[in-house]
């Protein structure tokens, strides 16, 4: 029986932080002027690092491969500007990891810049028919060649998801436009301004994986995006579905649970239950890679928060420094306290602004002292609010305290490895216990203990 009001799909527990997207929700995507120099890390994804493919002081053009992927779970990296390479250097990523990186000094003349770049990436015709002309493997190969990784943040190499596996047939393809992190609006602006490449990318991914069902999933706080996508998906067989707005709806496992009603096994991937999830940005990049043969060199990101003078949505070259982004957005306000790569729930704070933007950078959130103010930490009251909000149904406080005490067996009994670090528990904790941090430490200790 269908009721008059169809209940929007969602998942159990989770929370509703203020979405604070008003800073940049209405700001059209601007193209960041070509930076003077970019630093291209050779590891921007989950998996094996790339091998450098160019020598120092070599002329490279926009889109040339500068790092070659030698393993299957890896993705090549490309020059995001035309210019001259310099000696191999080291980049510190926001998560603190040091990786080799290729610096490129930009040339005066650029192949593409400004609105031309935007038009080349997202403009023009995006035919929604004729996907059958492409062999599935051809699409996966194009994704690999273009260095595509998940642009939602996890940066898992896309071709791995698109490569067919006889043992694990794919039935459903979900295009993730939830963007549940507060502040971030990069995916939202893409959905509003360029829905067509997203839809074409979805059709290509469906062709590659053999998925019969393609659903673009958007939270119901983005009606404009839903409308734009509905227009773009007409007569394509792609469905647009509105989901209840709740954090972390954009989490892959929460999305699969909400839309397909099936749980992704702990420690497994959506692949295991016949589902592939792609971020909307990844989908658009796939369309560009297959139809136009262009690699992933730029990405859309939000620079937002009350700590930045002019919040914007930017189309920026991968490898540009966070400092350049902040400069372009008018600089930090005097009360800026934390510069976060990504959103405030799961993002990493930067200790230095000279960190390059990578493929997985969904935004830059600058928080002020007021934003990050927290009550002083007290002892856990065992109130259980962390249990009430955990989307994975874990007992966060037990895991955290077991980790702190070094009782790894207890932490394991409470399923520490199932934690995805979404931050819901620490967000609600009335005692301000740094639950996620303690759980992370526990995971590291566990890995060390079990690895040896």
């Amino acid at each position: 029986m269908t009721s008059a009001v169809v209940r929007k799909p969602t998942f159990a527990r989770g929370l509703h932080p203020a979405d604070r997207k008003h800073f940049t929700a209405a700001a059209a995507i601007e193209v960041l002027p070509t930076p003077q120099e970019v630093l291209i890390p050779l590891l921007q994804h989950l998996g094996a690092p790339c091998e450098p493919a160019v020598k120092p002081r070599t002329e490279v053009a926009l889109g040339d491969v500068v790092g070659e992927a030698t393993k299957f779970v890896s993705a090549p990296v490309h020059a995001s500007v035309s210019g001259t390479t310099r000696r191999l250097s080291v980049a510190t990523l926001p998560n603190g990891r040091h990786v080799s990186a290729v610096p490129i000094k930009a040339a005066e003349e650029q192949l593409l810049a400004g609105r031309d770049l935007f038009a080349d990436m997202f403009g023009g015709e995006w035919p929604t028919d004729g996907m059958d002309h492409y062999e599935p493997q051809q699409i996966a190969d194009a994704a690999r060649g273009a260095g595509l990784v998940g642009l939602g943040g996890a940066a898992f190499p896309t071709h791995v998801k698109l490569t067919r596996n006889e043992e694990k047939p794919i039935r459903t393809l979900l295009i993730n436009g939830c963007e549940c992190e507060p502040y971030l609006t990069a995916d939202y602006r893409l959905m509003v301004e360029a829905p067509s490449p997203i839809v074409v990318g979805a059709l290509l991914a469906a062709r590659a994986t053999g998925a019969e069902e393609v659903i673009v999933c958007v939270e119901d706080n983005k009606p404009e995006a839903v409308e734009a996508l509905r227009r773009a998906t007409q007569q394509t067989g792609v469905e647009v579905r509105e989901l209840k707005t709740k954090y972390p709806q954009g989490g892959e496992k929460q999305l699969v649970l909400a839309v397909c009603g099936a749980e992704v096994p702990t420690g497994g991937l959506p692949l295991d239950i016949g589902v592939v999830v792609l971020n909307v940005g990844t989908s658009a990049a796939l369309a560009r890679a297959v139809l136009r043969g262009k690699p992933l060199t730029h990405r859309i990101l939000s620079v937002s928060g009350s700590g930045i003078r002019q919040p914007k949505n930017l189309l920026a070259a991968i490898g540009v420094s966070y400092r350049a982004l902040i400069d372009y957005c008018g600089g930090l306000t005097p009360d800026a306290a934390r510069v976060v790569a990504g959103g405030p729930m799961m993002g990493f704070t930067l200790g230095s602004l000279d960190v390059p933007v990578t493929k997985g950078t969904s935004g830059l959130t600058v928080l002020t002292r007021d934003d990050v103010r927290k009550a002083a930490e007290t002892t856990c009251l065992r109130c259980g609010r962390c249990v009430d909000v955990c989307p994975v149904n874990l007992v966060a406080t037990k895991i955290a305290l077991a980790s702190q005490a070094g009782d790894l067996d207890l932490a394991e009994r409470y399923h520490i490895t199932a934690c995805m670090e979404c931050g819901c528990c620490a967000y609600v904790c009335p005692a301000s216990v740094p639950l996620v941090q303690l759980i992370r430490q526990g995971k590291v200790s566990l890995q060390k203990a079990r690895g040896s």
Partner: protein
Amino acid sequence: MAESGLPQENGNDGAVAQAAPPIHVAPAPHIAEQAFTTRRMMADVVIGLVPVVAMAVAIFHWYAVVQVGLCILSCLAAEVLFTWMRRKPVSVTDGSAVVTGVILGLSLPWSAPWYIAVIGSTVAIGLGKAVFGGLGCNIFNPAMVGRAFIMLSFARELGASAYVVTQSRLDIVTQATPLTIAKKFAADLAAGKVVAGDIQLQFESARQLWPLFLGQVNGSLGETSALAVLIGGTYLCLRRSASWEIPAGVVLSSFLLAGVGNWLGLTPFTALHHLVGGSLLFGAFFIATDPVTSPLTPKGKFLFGLGVGCLVILIRLFSGYPEGVMFAVLLMNAVVPLLNRWTIPRPVGGPTPASA
């Protein structure tokens, strides 16, 4: 929060306004629900107790004011004393001592002498909380530890007879508490005595449901009015400062068990009398819901509530005490670690391989 190596002070000299902002490195999440803190939780309990205190004052007049006030002050003093002895930072501002004080005060008879309130409060904070390491570390509900101590030490001052004074300006206190009357009535019946006269009359008056619900009966200061407890308790549960699973469990199991007891003739009171009489509801909403000494998971909380409810009725029916909330809560506090272990929720996606 570690300071980064960047310059800390913002030069704020216009030209390089963004050159030197203070940037902190800290783990995610970077935002928090700022309005909900430990203090706020404690404040919620006090707010929830306002109708209960108001009703206590309406019924017992200044006896209630003195008793509750004395307990609050003693608890605060004990908190200061014990944190000072342990060389710990001052924790008196977290509000937990006030909550303990109010609850202990409300659980005492109007007639208890001043030193009982003071000793009870000191034991509640000292033995109930400080020896375990302070707020969050205690196993047993501090207020109930304090109350159990004075109840066992001063049996006369806290026994059933302490509630009754035949000559008083307060009409209510010339009668025994409803549960005591019911107990005596049942005992007389069981002993085969001819129940008549005074006790028969008292029982007839004690079984009036409406005064029992409103609180126009004798009893501990905060327990008499089911109405006031329900109002405050509903507020607490709506604020999620108390978990509704606990009172739900208490009410369900006590109602069922009391119904069975009444049907078997073990108690002359019906299930409804047992529910609104005595401190069952006060205990269900304000004592058993102490987060520190109750389980973590929703399922564990419900089981905990069921256990408290069952024990209360068992004590009321089979022990020498007319009331059993205090012992029921303390006994269930002891099994909380077990309940937590038995109710580890199944993670979405199934258990992790290592723990399976």
